[in-house]
C-alpha cells in the first residue's frame, strides 16, 4: 500500500520535473521576448501583458530571463551530475573490482576530498579560476564524484561475492565484460538514486556561486546572478528578484522531493 502511494508520488513529481525541463528547453516558444534585449523605454516595468514578470534594470524581460536562466542552471546541473556520476561510478567499480593498490590510492584521494569543507574549496577554486560557468562546475565537481565512487565501490564489493560473477569468471569472461554486463546493471539503481538526490544540492551550489559572481558571465541569464543583480534595486522593482527566487525554490523543491520519494520507494 505504502509502495503504491509512493509510486503515485514519484509519477506526479516526475511529470512536474519533466514539465519544468520542457519549459526551459523550449523557452523560445513560451517566451516571446529576447532575454538579452535591453529596452530603454521599458526599464523596471511592473508585470503587465507584454512582460508577465516585469522588466529589470536594463529593461530586459524577466519572464524570458527566468526561462532562459533555468536552461543555464538546469543544463549545467545535469551535465555536472552526469559527469560526476560517470566518473565516480567508473572509479568505484574499478576500485571495488580490483582492490589492492589502485583501490588504496583512489580511496585515500576520496577521503582527502571529503576532509575539506566543500563550499570553501569551491569558492576558492571558482574564484581563482576567474569566474565562468566552467570554473564553477570544476570547483563543485572536484568533490562531487566521491559519493558516487564510494557507493559504486561498496556495491561492487558485495556483488563480486555473488555466484553469478564467479560463474562468469569460470566461464572465462574477461574483467571488462563482467564489469559492464554483470556489475554495472546491478548497481545502477542505487547509484542513479544518489544522482537524483544530488541534483538539488548541485543546483544550490551552482546558483550560489553565480550569485557571488563566480559562476555565469553576464549578460547570460542565470537565476543566482539575476537575484544578485536585482538585489540592488529590490525596493523599486521587487519582481526582478522575486520571480527568479520563486523559480529556484520550486525547482529545487521538486527535485529534492523526487529524490526523497525514490529513495523511500527503494527502501519500502
Amino acid at each position, binding site marked *: 500500500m505504502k509502495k503504491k502511494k509512493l509510486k503515485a508520488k514519484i509519477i506526479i513529481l516526475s511529470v512536474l520535473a519533466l514539465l519544468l525541463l520542457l519549459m526551459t528547453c523550449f523557452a523560445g516558444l513560451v517566451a516571446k521576448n529576447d532575454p538579452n534585449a535591453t529596452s530603454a523605454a521599458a526599464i523596471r516595468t511592473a508585470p503587465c501583458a507584454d512582460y508577465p514578470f516585469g522588466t529589470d534594470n536594463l529593461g530586459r524581460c524577466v519572464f524570458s530571463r527566468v526561462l532562459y536562466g533555468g536552461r543555464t542552471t538546469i543544463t549545467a546541473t545535469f551535465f555536472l551530475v552526469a559527469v560526476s556520476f560517470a566518473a565516480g561510478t567508473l572509479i568505484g567499480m574499478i576500485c571495488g573490482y580490483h582492490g589492492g593498490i589502485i583501490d588504496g590510492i583512489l580511496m585515500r584521494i576520496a577521503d*582527502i576530498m571529503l*576532509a*575539506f*569543507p*566543500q*563550499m*570553501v*574549496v*569551491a*569558492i*576558492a*577554486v571558482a*574564484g*581563482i*579560476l*576567474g569566474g565562468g560557468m566552467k570554473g564553477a562546475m570544476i570547483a563543485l565537481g572536484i568533490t562531487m564524484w566521491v559519493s558516487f565512487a564510494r557507493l559504486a565501490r561498496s556495491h561492487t564489493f558485495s556483488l563480486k561475492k555473488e555466484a553469478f560473477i564467479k560463474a562468469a569468471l569460470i566461464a572465462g569472461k574477461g574483467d571488462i565484460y563482467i564489469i559492464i554486463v554483470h556489475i554495472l546493471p546491478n548497481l545502477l539503481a542505487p547509484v542513479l538514486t544518489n544522482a537524483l538526490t544530488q541534483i*538539488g544540492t548541485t543546483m*544550490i551550489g551552482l*546558483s*550560489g556561486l553565480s*550569485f*557571488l*559572481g*563566480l559562476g555565469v558571465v553576464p549578460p547570460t541569464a542565470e537565476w*543566482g546572478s539575476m*537575484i*544578485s543583480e536585482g*538585489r540592488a534595486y*529590490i*525596493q523599486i522593482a*521587487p519582481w526582478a*528578484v*522575486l520571480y527568479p*527566487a520563486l523559480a*529556484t*525554490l520550486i525547482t*529545487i*523543491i521538486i527535485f*529534492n*522531493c523526487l529524490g*526523497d520519494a525514490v529513495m523511500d520507494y527503494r527502501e519500502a
Partner: protein
Amino acid sequence: MIKKVLKRILTLVVILVILSFFVFALMYIAPGDPAEKRLTSQGVAVTKKVLDAERERLGLMKPFLVRYGEWLFSIIRGDFGISFKDDMPVAPKLLQGLGRTAVLALTSLAVSLITSFLFAVASVLKKDGIADRIIKVFSFVSNSLPNFLISVLLMYFLCIKLKLFPVIAKGDLKGLLLPVLSLSIPMIGRFIRQMRAEFLSEMSKDYVAGMRGRGVKTGYIMFNVIRNSLGHIFTIIALQTGTLMGGSVVIETIFRWPGIGKLVMDSITARDYPVIMGFVVIMGTIYLIINQIADVLSHRLDPRPES
C-alpha cells in the same frame, strides 16, 4: 592511547599539507598575472622592465617548489605573506575577519541547535502527529532553500515591506539578527531531519520497548534516547560546520558583515592570492580539527568498537 593521539595528529598534518599544496598549485596555474594586475591598479604604465621588477619583488620568479616550500614554512610560523592589494600583512586581516565570522557562525550554530533540538524532540514524541508533519514540511522546505535566497527574501519582507531592520548590518545586535536568521534557517532544516532520523532509529531499539513495557516515564526514556544519540549528533554538527563556512561567505557578502568571508570575496575580485590561500588554509584547518574532535567525542560517548 598516546599512539592513537599521535596517529590522529599525523593524519591531520598530512591532510593539511595536501590541502596547502592543492591551494598553492591552484594559484600557480590560475589565469592572470598578479604583478600586472597590481601595477595597472596603481596606475603604473606596464612595461616589461617594471613588470619583471614587480614579479621579482613579489617573489613570483622563483621555481614552483621553492615558492611552495617558503610559503608553507612561513604559514607554519603564522606569517601568511603580504597582501598584493595594499602591502599589508595578511595574517592580521584574516584574524580580524575570523573573529567577526566566529561571532556570526557561532551565534547561528547555537540558534539552530537549540531550535532544531526542540523541534526534533517534539516531532519524535508524537510521530506522524500534526506537529510532526508541520515540522517535516518546514525542515524539507528550509533544507531546499539556498541561503542567498533566504537572505534576499528576508531582506525584502522584513527590511523593505515591514521596515523592521536596517538593510545594511552595522555589527550591533540588531544587525546580527538577519545574517544569523539567513544562516540558521537552512541549517535548522538539515539538523531537524538528521536529529529526527537519529532519535527515531534509537527509539526503535529493544531497550526502549523494554522501558516502555516496564512503564518507565516518557521523559526518562527520551533522556536515554537523547544521551545515546549524542555521539552521532556531534558528528552531524561537525560536518555542518563546512556548510556553515561556505554559507557565511555568501551571507557576509550580502549583509556587508566585515568577516573573513567578505574579505575573501573582496580578495577574489582583486586577485589578492595570499588572502585567498590563507582563507582556505585557515578554514580547512578549523574544519579538520572540529571533525577530529567530534570523532573523538563520539567514540568516547559510544565506546563500543566500530563494526
